[in-house]
């Protein structure tokens, strides 16, 4: 059964298109990732699916309810963990959970039971009567996830779930998300700009850039699309390196920031040939490395840019724009 169905969903702020005709379908029980740099439109897409934002055009169904017209059904079907914190810091962990349970009209013996169960699951039962303002970032995240699960949603939205967390907490959360999906069968849609996160967790990943989906497949298949292994050569003269290796024929070489990247199958068999060609032509090279492709390479392959290129400037400008457009 289809948990989420999205067709040509679009959001415009004035003449700026934040989300541009995205379409996808997520079967029940899948972990689906929206991967892209900051400002790519991931959060805007999630906000529309969660009925917090009205789309400019397009349609979406969640658990059989339309986001335009069936808002209440959608809201009952989803749990959401926002990118920015949405807890009441002046209340205790338990009170935040209790507030949520009452909002979703969970009757009392069951409500108390579920709260206790979930707080134990995220290992916050010992701190449940402490005010949230005394909690660390990781604890708040865990509490938000527990809260998002309280009403047994069919679909869980996680907007940058591990943003700003230390590696240990992040690992812990990943295991936790996987367990939820495996044991409770919850469909999960998450946004992230961490490649490892998408790679590790997602059954399928949609790469989103400037509001558009540029590729959508399983992480393994996406990496295969890059074309085998990645050889990176650092050199003071990348242009000469590129022309030396492409002269061999079937090779494709991309120059990027003082390095040359070559994608080819079975790189280890060709490395000697490349080295010979470089020294034969007298082209200087500082280092050569071979590795399996990552989603970073996939992003580069489909967009021609590295995800790390996205400067803070551009991101901030975008946010400013969205903010003024909303007024």
């Amino acid at each position: 059964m289809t948990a989420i169905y999205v067709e040509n969903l679009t959001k415009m702020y004035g003449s700026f298109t934040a989300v541009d005709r995205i379409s996808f379908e997520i079967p029940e029980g899948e972990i689906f990732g929206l991967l892209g740099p900051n400002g790519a439109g991931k959060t805007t897409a999630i906000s529309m699916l969660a009925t917090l934002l009205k789309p400019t055009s397009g349609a979406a169904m969640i658990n059989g309810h339309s986001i335009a017209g069936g808002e209440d059904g959608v809201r009952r079907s989803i749990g959401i963990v926002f990118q920015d914190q949405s807890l009441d810091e002046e209340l205790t962990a338990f009170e935040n959970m209790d507030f949520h349970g009452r909002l979703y009209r969970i009757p009392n013996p069951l409500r108390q039971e579920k709260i206790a169960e979930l707080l134990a699951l995220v290992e916050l039962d010992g701190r449940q009567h402490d005010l949230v303002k005394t909690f660390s970032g990781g604890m708040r995240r865990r509490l938000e996830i527990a809260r998002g699960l309280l009403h047994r949603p069919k679909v869980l939205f996680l907007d940058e779930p591990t943003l700003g967390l230390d590696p240990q907490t992040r690992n812990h959360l990943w295991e936790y998300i996987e367990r939820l999906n495996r044991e409770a069968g919850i469909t999960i849609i998450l946004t992230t700009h961490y490649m490892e996160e998408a790679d590790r967790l997602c059954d399928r990943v949609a790469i989103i850039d400037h509001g558009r989906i540029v590729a959508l497949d399983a992480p393994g298949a996406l990496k295969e699309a890059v074309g085998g292994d990645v050889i990176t050569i650092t050199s003071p003269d990348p242009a000469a390196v590129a022309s030396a290796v492409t002269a061999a024929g079937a090779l494709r070489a991309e120059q990027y920031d003082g390095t040359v990247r070559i994608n080819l199958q079975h790189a280890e068999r060709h490395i000697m040939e490349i080295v010979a060609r470089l020294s034969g032509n007298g082209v200087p090279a500082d280092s050569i490395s071979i590795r399996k492709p990552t989603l970073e390479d996939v992003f580069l392959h489909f967009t021609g840019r590295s995800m790390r290129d996205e400067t803070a400037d551009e991101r901030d400008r975008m946010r400013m724009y969205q903010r003024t457009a909303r007024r």
Partner: protein
Amino acid sequence: MDIIYTIWLRSVKRYLRSKSRIIGTLGMPLFFLLFLGFGLNSIVSIPGTGEGYTAFLVPGIVAMSVLFTSVFAGIQIIWDKQFGFLKETLVAPVSRMEIMLGQTLGGATTACIQGVIILVLSLFIGLTLSSAAGFLIALCFMALIGISFTAFGIAIASRMEDMHGFQLVMNFVVFPIFGLSGALFPISSLPSWLAPLTMADPLTYGVEGIRYGLSGTSQIDPLLCGGVLIAFAAATALAGAFLFRKMSA
């Protein structure tokens, strides 16, 4: 009803937990009461009633404290927006109307508690309550002021981006509403050009209603006061609900 109660409960819990806010918002009304009351009591006598200025002033100061607390409680929705908590309520399967009513009743409740605290404190400086029924009448008027102005605060907050506009609202809207009402002076002694402004101020009817409850006499018929204030509460609640419906997280 459950949802309204849930949101009300959160407001009241937050209020009872922030001791500094309770004491902070008591400060200004209390100082007004002490300085104006003691300062002017000996030189001002209220024509017609024969009562001292302090006894005249208490209902006005009670209304003031309810007014300020409730406007602030309404505008607090902005904090919820900035700290992200508003999203949690907006994404839940509840109607905006329920959220708005819960906030309004929560704000009105905290405002009434502030008003009662002022009332109790003024017992120490010579206020005497005429009857239990009178106290209840005063409480009803406090509740009506509280509901009206919390809804008013929510309506304003729905149109505000952040807390920067708060001082503007306090200085140019809330303070004039207080100053023009009959809180500090009897309406009958106003110059003729000022009287219409005072009669157009909804708080005037709240002050007079509380005054009737506490002292048994007022310059405006208490039934008229009640009628005007109920109409005003309904109007602000509608405006608040309408504007809050359009507020985005």
